[in-house]
């Protein structure tokens, strides 16, 4: 329990950092900053969630997996709230038309809906019935990464490095599934 509490506090750090940057440092482009921090954190936690699954035979951290996944959803939710409240200013018509018009927005939205599905079905009662569908996390990772690339004007070296984690994770998972590697 103590360990879970400690983990939750660590997973909240990006959120506290974001609040600090918004209200103490007062970053100059808050909407963009919220997108960057919440989006990058959500995607990073999604990676960690899958890595926990992949390495469970080597290091069993599965009991923390749900919490990491739910925090990923939490940051994705903040990302979505930023879109609807600050970027679209609660204008339902723009939210819908922008989402349908822009591939990068609807790919992100699909990814978000997959996270909603996994979060709802992650309870003790529902998880046994639905865990096999939680493989959609890989679809969510791919969609989120494409969404992230499409949102940029040009990709920096740092972003390329960050993106290269995706094929590594996916290839590793594939090799594991096809039993080419045993970890």
């Amino acid at each position, binding site marked *: 329990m103590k360990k879970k509490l400690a983990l939750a506090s660590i997973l909240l750090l990006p959120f506290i950092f974001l609040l600090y940057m918004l209200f103490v440092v*007062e970053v*100059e*482009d*808050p*909407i*963009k900053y919220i997108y960057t921090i919440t989006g990058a954190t959500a995607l990073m936690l999604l990676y960690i969630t899958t890595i926990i699954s992949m390495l469970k035979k080597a290091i069993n951290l599965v009991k923390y997996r749900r919490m990491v996944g739910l925090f990923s959803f939490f940051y994705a939710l903040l990302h979505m709230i930023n879109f609807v409240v*600050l*970027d679209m*200013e609660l204008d339902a018509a*723009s939210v819908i038309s*922008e989402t349908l*018009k*822009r*591939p*990068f927005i609807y790919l992100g939205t699909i990814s978000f809906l997959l996270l909603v599905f996994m979060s709802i079905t992650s309870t003790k009662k529902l998880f046994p019935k639905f865990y096999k569908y939680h493989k959609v996390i890989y679809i969510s990772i791919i969609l989120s990464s494409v969404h992230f690339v*499409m*949102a940029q*004007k*040009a*990709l*920096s*070296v740092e972003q*390329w490095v960050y993106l290269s984690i995706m094929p590594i994770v996916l290839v590793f998972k594939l090799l594991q599934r096809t039993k080419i590697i045993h970890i």
Partner: protein
Amino acid sequence: MQERIYRFRCVEGWSMVVPWVGFELPQLIKYLKPLSSAKYIRFETLYDPDQFPDQKRGVLAAIEYPYVEALRMDEAMNPLSFIATGLYRHTLPPQNGAPLRLITPWKYGFKSIKSIAKITFTDTEPINTWQKIASNEYGFFANVNPNVDHPRWSQARERVLGKFFKQDTLMFNGYEKEVAHLYKGIDLKKLF
């Protein structure tokens, strides 16, 4: 030298108001005396990997260098076209485009080429850097236009730096009276 307080609107949706210091571009052009056959003015940023970190990255650089921008001669001769040598009443810092930077306030920010090292007059339309990277997203004119979306995002509103809420983007960034005549008869949806 004079001070010009202009709106500045980035193609990525943020905006601010900047007090530039400098002189009108038409003054410089008159001094350079281009041939009457010149139809365009082409600018190039300094290429010096020792001073520009991204230029040092070679194939890993974010864009191709040197950066290129251009204006049609009548756009360049518009009195709003400005060469900045300073901002906020100080000399331009290197990152803001020292020593000379183009400012065309009715166009998206990427037109305002920094650290100009070469100026050419030509009779053929130059291809600017962003047009070369993605011509379906960035055109030659790059006029601020709330009615023509970037393919990936809307240009109808803008995020004013330092504020949580957005404001409407104005046609030609609010300089319609000064520059609209330059584009009479041109379909700005096609030539964005």
